[in-house]
């Protein structure tokens, strides 16, 4: 280095200029890099907003529904006194309505077209009214019933007149009638209680989520009763009792792998073992709960272990020093202190199990199950599988209902997660 020449002032200035230009370039690069990070996060957040917003927009209209109140003349020539439910009330009402409006109906096609605007609920409501108070026969009485799904969509603006007539489910004439009903003031828009009080149905205006909610609740009950004791027990053993040997290592590797096994594989397991081998009832909350319990177990064990690990060893040493046995130490000192963490972990894993769909498809929970489930061994639906069923349904009215079912599902998950967060805030202790 001794013969290195002293740089001339010109070379020095040139070097400084190069450095400065490089610095500018480097800073620009720095800014770009930071921008990429911001963009990535903005993208994720934007997507979440679009997802939730879109579902909210699609689903909110399902929370209201349109009903119609029509005076029904209980025609004794048409209604069988002994069996009122056998009467075609929708047609009867349609014919009476056409007569009131003075619309001629030579071949019955008009009555058929008008009749399809009423929900079949009208028939049940009228039949029930008649069988409860037979004195109404021969008189006229007002009856309220939902409108059919297409009529409901028309009033909500989902079916538009601007669409060519051949491409929509309502004819111009039917739309005129609906407008006329609206003008007469017999159509009411109200909160869709049916959505929350009914089970699944093939008719969108009568389909509700209650059956699926009960099914999901029964299933989660089974899951919790099995997964939480097993998971906590396993975590305690691994964290507090297990000797360091091959078996323990094997179990740990096993649990880590099970946590990453695709959920559909658990569905195959449930199908092969619980249904085809043990012959447990297909599509029942019992089988669903068992499968979800096996699936939730690894995450529950991992969460419980970490909260047990958070209890400082000094607590254990103190208890042992006072003469407590290992079991007493764990069950009387460590576990109570770890309880908030255990509960938080349990709730979060239950919330996860609530949203799981793939295994339910394989154990038969995608078939249509009307009515409300009554026991854990009868076929039942579940909220996520209801979303799947409704998404596949061809009627357009099911689209908004699918979004509404998703909103209900998300609401349950939000409540569970909020409970977990509250528990953590309230009871978590930092050592």
């Amino acid at each position: 280095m001794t013969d290195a020449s002293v740089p001339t002032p010109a070379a020095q200035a040139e070097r400084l200029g190069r450095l400065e230009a490089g610095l500018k370039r480097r800073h620009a690069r720095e800014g770009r890099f930071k921008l990429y990070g911001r963009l990535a996060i903005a993208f994720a957040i934007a997507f979440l907003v679009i997802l939730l917003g879109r579902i909210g927009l699609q689903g909110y209209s399902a929370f209201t529904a349109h009903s119609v109140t029509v005076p029904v003349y209980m025609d004794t020539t048409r209604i069988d006194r002994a069996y009122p439910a056998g009467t075609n009330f929708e047609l009867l009402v349609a014919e009476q309505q056409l007569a009131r409006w003075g619309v001629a109906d030579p071949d019955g096609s008009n009555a058929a077209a008008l009749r399809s605007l009423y929900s079949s609920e009208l028939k049940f409501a009228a039949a029930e009214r008649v069988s409860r108070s037979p004195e109404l026969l021969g008189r006229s009485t007002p009856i309220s019933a939902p409108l059919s799904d297409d009529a409901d969509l028309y009033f909500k603006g989902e079916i538009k007149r601007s669409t060519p007539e051949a491409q929509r489910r309502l004819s111009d004439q039917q739309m005129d009638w609906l407008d006329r009903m609206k003008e007469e003031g017999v159509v009411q828009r109200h909160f869709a209680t049916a959505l929350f009080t009914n089970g699944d149905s093939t008719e969108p205006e009568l389909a509700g989520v209650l059956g699926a909610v009960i099914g999901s609740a029964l299933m989660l009950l089974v899951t919790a009763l099995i997964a939480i004791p097993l998971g906590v027990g396993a975590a305690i053993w691994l964290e507090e009792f297990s000797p360091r040997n091959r078996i323990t290592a094997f179990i740990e590797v096993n649990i880590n792998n099970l946590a990453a096994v695709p959920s559909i594989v658990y569905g195959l397991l449930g199908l092969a073992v619980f249904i085809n081998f043990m012959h447990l009832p297909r599509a029942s909350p019992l089988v669903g709960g068992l499968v979800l319990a096996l699936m939730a177990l690894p995450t529950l064990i991992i969460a419980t272990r970490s909260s047990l690990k958070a209890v400082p060893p000094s607590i254990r040493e103190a208890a042992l020093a006072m003469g407590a046995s290992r079991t007493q130490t764990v069950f009387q000192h460590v576990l109570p202190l770890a309880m908030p963490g255990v509960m938080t972990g349990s709730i979060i894993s239950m919330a996860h199990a609530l949203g799981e769909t793939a295994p339910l498809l394989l154990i038969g929970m995608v078939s249509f199950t009307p009515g409300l489930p009554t026991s854990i061994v009868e076929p039942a639906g579940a909220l996520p599988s209801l979303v799947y069923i409704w998404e596949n349904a061809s009627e357009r009215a099911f689209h908004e209902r699918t979004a509404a079912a998703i909103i209900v599902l998300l609401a349950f998950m939000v409540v569970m997660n909020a409970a977990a967060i509250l528990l953590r805030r309230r009871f978590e202790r930092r050592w």
Partner: protein
Amino acid sequence: MLWLVLALLVVLCAGAFAAGRALAARRAEGGKAHSRPNQHAAYALIWSAAPAIVMLVLGAVAAGPVTQKLMLEGAPEAVQTLEPFRRQAFLGDAHRVGQGLEAQQLWEQPYAELLPAEGRRAHRIESTLTWGGAAAVILAALLGALFALSQIKASMRARNRVEGWIGGLLFACSVVAILTTLGIIGALAWDSLRFFQSVPPTDFLFGTQWSPQTAIRADQVGSSGAFGAVPLFAGTLLIMLIAMTVAAPIGLFSAIYLSEYAGPVTRAVVKPVLEVLAGVPTVVYGFFAALTVGPAFRAFFNGIGAQLAGGPLDGLGQYLMLVQNQMALVAGAVMGIMLIPFVSSLSDDILNAVPQSLRDGSYAMGATQSETVKRVLLPAALPGISGALLLAVSRAIGETMIVTMAAGLAARLTFNPLDTVTTVTVQIVTLLTGDQEFNSPKTLAAFGLGLTLFVATLGLNLIAQRIVQRYREQYD
């Protein structure tokens, strides 16, 4: 019946507890007992409950298969020669008739005639099993309790024995994890073996034609040729690649920004948002992909196609105008978004684990923050991050709902993201929902696919965990 047995069992256990306590107090009179009365009582309780619970579980597992076997063995010739699927339905209806319920379907002769008798037989078998099981459970509880009570004396180390039992119970809980794995492998391997008896594994793994729907017909290409899973593997791979092109850069950049640039406030806001994204059920992503993203992409490509058609790129334009709602790109993009929080939280952990001294050294040499990230942090964290990406890949391969709802069913050997493709998981769902016939290769194929999926994801997980583990140890 079950509730009655359970109630009786609770009463018995409570009795054993009380008796154990009283007995321990009496036998210890005068001298000093090793354990306290409550510990003796717990010992008696365990001995009455444990055998009974073992019997209960055994009964629950065995009742179904045993009933099935007995019903089948005593069944008339006509029933035994039915094809398996209908035989199952017949036995199911016999069970319902025996319970006093309506049969689920109308049976032709001679089955309609056989049904009442079979129903009575089903009822007899079931009630015998139920009563036998109940008696066995109660007997087990009684014998266990008597044994424990006979053991109680002042010098017995009841506490140690109870704690031994508790330890055993906890160990049993952790063994469930092994049992689950064994169950998965057993179930998948058993049914896959039956599948591979009719379709050779090489045809399954390397065949390029997948059309299980026609496998029942006699005049088809040949049942072995229709079960080539290569198109499914290709579809799975394609969707996985699309998902990773979305998830890897976005997840990684979010993680870098969160761990290196963001202040505590930004972190406090962004992390929960990403957690929400991770908590959304996959069926919701599927719904969004099918009803929002799919139509939007389709309109976009059809629009471009309409612009191009008629010009020099007419062929491409015609093709784009025919693009459908269901395509690999939609499923892959939405799945990628689902994976963003997964990638970002794992990478965030890994970046945070890189020691501060490495950063400080880099800054001291005059490097900017981005240069530090690119030249120091990422190389140092590379093994960990590649492990995280592998875990995300395994997730993408096993993901079911999004692809079921948005990718389609056509088994096509293509790498065009605008085509409809199908994946392994979609086919499992399709083969096993709806009417199934339990011994046809069609349904068994689902288990073959399941086994392939399980082996692939297991391999990826093992590798990824090994990598992450080794990397963690590096800085500890």
